[in-house]
């Protein structure tokens, strides 16, 4: 339910769409082949695409840990697994604004909500095989959804608890049956999902990577370094988290819906782990690797822009950085103090820290540009107020901020900013500290590794006053920016998993958000408009300070073409062509 | 000023003349030894006597050319078989060292490099001077050790220094010194670190060397008793200067210098504990840089007079003796 815009490099955009058309026509011929023929000639499964073949060599700083598609929550692992695993529904695999909403993938159809959104019925496509040769059936689907609970997928609770019987599964995963939640009819290849309560985001969640369909006999525990068989065009054939990952073609794959899971171009995809960003960039510049996963380091953006402009990839993400203000601790339990910081922060400086306007844009709302419900608005800039927001951020208003601090009577208090150790966060944290000092606070920065910091700031026991962090939605949706981060239900005191870092709870706004979500079942546009209202209402309470939304800037080797980046799936590895 | 020993018939092997060694210290030059002159004939044993710091070792090491402290200045002449050693090139000096002149050091405990066997170290010296194979060298080593009275020499040669007793070790040291049949052996307090019984054996060994190896010996000691037992002639040093020289018997009979007298008074009893220092003389000898003007011994001398504030020349005192004391001839000694 999220609509997003992909700002792929302009030059690649046209090529990408034309190629998509070519590929689509080709795929038709594949589908016409009977499954028997297709199976007999395994090699011919490779779609006879132009520019296919070769080994794509990518490089990343470190691996993303476990390969279990229902457990892994790492962006890098998703990057690898997008062409390996499939979900019933999927976000379209092309760049641009049309790539929302979800389309049918393993399912033949996008189900219509029945019983006021309590029942969803899908039919499985025929002839889809896992990379172990086993043909996909309805039992695999039911088993995969049970496995979400049994294996302890991180999103089992937040995303799939609307299913009937999910509560029992969460409480006692070992004996999870989902008997009433999912009913199957193998003969008609239908799977029916029964919900306790309507979930307006149920369809995107069927497209979410943790609901990947795996063979029914996959062990019900984290598979770790071994990847279970999938249905996509590739299979993972080698993995060592400290060194490499290798993907080869899935011999049983044939393209069933190009937009949902296109056939891949490279024969082999290899990833090397262990280089730092600087070295990655140098290596890609020298042609040793085809793509660097990490962004180009800040100090070398100029170099990349000067000498490798044609190879630079810039694409939008639903990712922005913000400072969460703990609304339960002084001084930010005071609305004026929170608003003051929002007025005072120099978002232009934040843009500079991320490499300038080409890479980053100031943001002073909670739904980022590109996400459903986005309606550009800025309450905290010179000449604006929560009552009369401006269209966009212009300049900080230190005077107003100082006045608010005076009114709040919080000046002089000690504030510790908890920030991740890594890279750009340091500069942002220092800038924030500086701003706080200008406002008359006694501010200091405490930094720790991102992995540690992210759970540290969530736990109320650590009494974090202000935390610098970033948020990227799992899939394009307003609720994952507003409800996940600012509703009363996401506060879990004394727990490391309490995404409402601000600990902000306002029943009125919660009601507004619920209402916006439920509207989506009936009226998508009205829902988005309502989300925009919720965004402004939240922002008036300033539970956090949004800073910048950034675009990803990476470098491809000269020989690589056809970079397609979608809002949901990042750069599509399978679509890169090697010339 | 050369001292001649009337009874020596052979030609001089070593002739030291006016040897001075000085070292710069805080901007001025401090003399460690001054105007040392003497002659050593073949097969002669000369005792060099004095307290610690009197310059005995400096004299010996200067003759060996082993003084290499930066800034050190050596003047005078050291003639070995007519060849001038002062200012001789390092290479030529090396050829003489160990082969023609050998030295035995005070402490056999530390004289050997601890990480090699005794035999290896003796072989090393032999091979440094003679074209011999390791096997031949070892044969000579074993033979030498045997000559020095080392029991089971083959096995001893394969032992490390710390595995040997002090006496054995000193025998090995002497064996090493003699390994190239040196004509001059300088023994620097060879017995100080040994216990009394072994001391006697080693001294016995040294005194037989002139017969067995035809060596002359320059024996450095602070122990008058040792001198009396071993030496043909004696030279007494005090604070870097010659106090008195003469034939051993004559000197022991009639010491002409008050220092010599004092030394003789302090001969330890042959039995019983050997005193560590010479306690009989009050005070300590002056350090080179604190040496008083005039006679260096005057501050400790019972008979010091005003004249002693000038340096007394070394002058004949009868009976072939020479002494650096204004009162040496007038017989003011108690003995």
């Amino acid at each position, binding site marked *: 339910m999220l609509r997003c815009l992909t700002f792929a490099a302009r030059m690649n955009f046209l090529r990408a769409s034309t190629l998509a058309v070519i590929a689509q026509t080709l795929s038709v011929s594949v589908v016409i082949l009977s499954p028997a023929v297709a199976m007999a000639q395994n090699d011919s499964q490779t779609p006879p695409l132009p520019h296919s073949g070769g080994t794509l060599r990518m490089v990343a700083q470190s691996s993303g840990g476990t390969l279990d598609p229902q457990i892994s929550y790492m962006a890098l692992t998703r990057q690898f697994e997008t062409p390996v695993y499939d979900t019933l529904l999927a976000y379209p695999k092309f760049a641009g604004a049309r790539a929302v909403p979800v389309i049918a993938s393993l399912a033949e159809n996008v189900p219509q909500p029945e019983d006021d959104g309590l029942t969803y019925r899908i039919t499985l496509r025929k002839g889809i095989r896992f990379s172990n040769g086993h043909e996909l059936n309805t039992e695999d689907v039911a088993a995969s959804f049970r496995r979400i609970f049994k294996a302890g997928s991180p999103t089992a609770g937040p995303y799939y608890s609307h299913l009937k019987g999910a509560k029992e599964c969460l409480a006692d995963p070992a004996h999870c049956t989902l008997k009433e939640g999912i009913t199957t009819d193998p003969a008609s290849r239908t799977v029916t999902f029964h919900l306790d309560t309507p979930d307006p985001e149920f369809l995107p969640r069927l497209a979410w990577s943790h609901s990947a369909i795996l063979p029914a006999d996959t062990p019900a525990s984290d598979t770790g370094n071994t990847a279970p068989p999938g249905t996509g065009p590739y299979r993972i054939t080698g993995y060592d988290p400290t060194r490499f990952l290798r993907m080869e073609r899935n011999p049983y794959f044939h393209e069933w819906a190009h937009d949902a899971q296109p056939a891949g171009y490279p024969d082999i995809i290899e990833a090397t782990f262990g280089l730092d960003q*600087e070295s990655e960039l140098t290596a890609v510049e020298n042609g040793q690797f085809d793509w660097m996963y990490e962004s180009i380091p800040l100090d070398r953006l*100029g170099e990349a822009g000067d000498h490798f402009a044609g190879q630079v990839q810039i694409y939008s993400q639903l990712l922005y950085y913000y400072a969460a203000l703990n609304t339960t601790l002084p001084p930010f339990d005071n609305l004026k103090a929170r608003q003051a910081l929002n007025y005072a922060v120099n978002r232009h400086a934040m843009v500079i*820290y991320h490499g300038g*306007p080409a890479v980053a844009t100031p943001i002073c709302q909670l739904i980022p540009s590109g996400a459903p419900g986005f309606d550009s608005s800025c309450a905290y800039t010179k000449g604006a107020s929560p009552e009369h927001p401006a269209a966009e951020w212009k300049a900080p208003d230190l005077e107003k901020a100082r006045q608010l601090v005076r009114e709040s009577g919080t000046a002089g208090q000690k504030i510790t900013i908890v920030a991740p150790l890594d890279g750009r966060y*340091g500069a942002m944290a220092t800038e924030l500290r500086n701003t706080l000092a200008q406002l008359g606070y006694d501010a200091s920065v405490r930094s720790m590794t991102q992995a540690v910091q992210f759970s540290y700031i969530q736990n109320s026991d650590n009494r974090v006053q202000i935390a610098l962090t970033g948020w990227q939605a799992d899939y394009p949706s307003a609720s994952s920016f507003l409800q996940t981060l600012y509703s009363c239900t996401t506060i879990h005191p004394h727990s490391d998993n309490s995404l409402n870092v601000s600990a902000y709870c306002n029943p009125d706004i919660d009601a507004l958000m619920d209402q916006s979500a439920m509207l989506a079942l009936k009226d998508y546009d009205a829902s988005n408009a309502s989300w925009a209202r919720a965004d402004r209402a939240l922002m008036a309470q300033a539970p956090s300070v949004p800073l910048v939304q950034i675009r990803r*800037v990476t470098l491809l080797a000269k020989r690589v073409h056809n970079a397609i980046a979608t809002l949901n799936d990042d750069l599509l590895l399978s679509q890169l062509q090697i010339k | 000023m050369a001292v001649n020993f009337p009874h020596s018939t052979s030609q001089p092997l070593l002739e030291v003349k006016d040897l001075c060694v000085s070292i710069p210290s805080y901007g001025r030059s401090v003399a460690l030894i001054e105007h040392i002159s003497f002659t050593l004939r073949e097969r002669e044993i000369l005792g060099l006597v004095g307290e610690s710091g009197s310059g005995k070792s400096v004299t010996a090491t200067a003759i060996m050319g082993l003084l290499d402290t930066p800034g050190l200045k050596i003047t005078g002449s050291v003639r070995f078989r007519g060849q001038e050693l002062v200012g001789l090139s390092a290479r030529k000096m090396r050829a003489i060292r160990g082969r023609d002149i050998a030295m035995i050091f005070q402490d056999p405990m530390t004289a050997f490099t601890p990480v090699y066997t005794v035999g290896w170290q003796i072989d090393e010296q032999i091979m440094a001077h003679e074209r011999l194979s390791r096997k031949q060298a070892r044969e000579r080593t074993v033979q030498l050790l045997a000559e020095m009275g080392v029991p089971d020499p083959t096995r001893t040669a394969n032992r490390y220094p710390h595995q040997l007793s002090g006496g054995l070790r000193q025998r090995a040291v002497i064996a090493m010194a003699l390994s190239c049949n040196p004509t001059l052996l300088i023994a620097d307090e060879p017995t100080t670190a040994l216990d009394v019984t072994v001391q006697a054996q080693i001294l016995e060994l040294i005194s037989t060397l002139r017969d067995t190896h035809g060596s002359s010996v320059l024996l450095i000691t602070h122990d008058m008793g040792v001198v009396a037992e071993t030496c043909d002639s004696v030279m007494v040093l005090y604070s870097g200067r010659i106090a008195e020289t003469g034939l051993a018997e004559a000197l022991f009979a009639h010491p002409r210098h008050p220092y010599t007298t004092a030394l003789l008074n302090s001969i330890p009893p042959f039995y019983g504990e050997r005193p560590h220092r010479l306690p009989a003389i009050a005070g300590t000898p002056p350090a080179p840089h604190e040496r008083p003007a005039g006679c260096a011994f005057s501050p400790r001398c019972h008979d010091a007079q005003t004249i002693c504030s000038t340096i007394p020349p070394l002058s004949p005192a009868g009976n072939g003796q020479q002494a650096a004391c204004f009162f040496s001839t007038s017989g003011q000694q108690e003995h």
Partner: protein
Amino acid sequence: MTTDLQTPASPAPSVSLWRQAARTLLADKGSMTALAVLCIIVLACLLAPLYAHYVAHTDAFASNVAGSIVLNGHEVDIMQPNDNPLHLGLSPIGPTGHTAYLLGADSQGRDIAARLLYGGRNSLMISACAAVLCLFLSTLVGVTAGYFGGITDSILSRLMDIMWAVPVYLFAISLSIITVRHGLQIGPFTIEADNLLIPIIIIALVYVPYAARPVRGRVMVLRQAEFVTAARCLGVPQWRVLLFDILPNVLITLVVLGPLLMALSLLAESALSFLSLGVQAPAASWGTMIQDGEGLIYSRPVVAIAPGLAIVFVVLALNILGDGLRDALDIRNATRRSR
């Protein structure tokens, strides 16, 4: 890294020994040059606020990425946009050669020259305090272990072994990682995580085995020494023996170790700060500056090179001074000279 300090025992050092050492040291050109360099650097760092305020007209701690300065009559952005078709990236201004931004700006638009002086204050202060604290602790441990021996010695030595079994930097990093989150709690006192005392304590702690060993060795030699035995036989109480016979002798070891430890501490501090585990923002040290400059090493190397050079100079001067002190105070030399 060893220091050759286990010299034979001698009676308590007299005043003349110190005087003679001072005289030797004063005559040593190398040590005097090192001392002069150190004094100049310390002085310059002490004058940091004056430099920042009156010369550079800058706030060394305020980020200034959006600001600009006037150079030769032109207004120049502190963060200069790159001139490429994609408008990617900005670079901080390089060395200007003017009083403002003499050495250029870092990634946050701050004046490097001014920060260099401010950073030096912390670096020097931390290393000096850490060295002193370390010496204090080492003396405590070394004297206890060396003087009382037996079980006390065994326990302390095993403890030192455990500390020694972990590479020094890893040990320091481990401690820092723990304290950087929640500060340090010693009894009723809590030290905030951003307090400079934390790196001081950590660095002092990790070098204790390094310094305690020579102290212990020296005390053990001293304990056997004649003058101590004599004092004990005379019925002098133990604390008096410790205080008047042992400690003054140990003092020589400490004085010699001092500059060397400070040099090591400075290096350790910079390493910790480089890993963002030492001095915490907003405070700066040379190590944090190198860390700031790491991301700019290719485009603005001066950001990392300048503080690095400062470290090299100070450590070098301290090492030379340490060598000079050791030579001047070496008891072996002293005794040899007077024999």
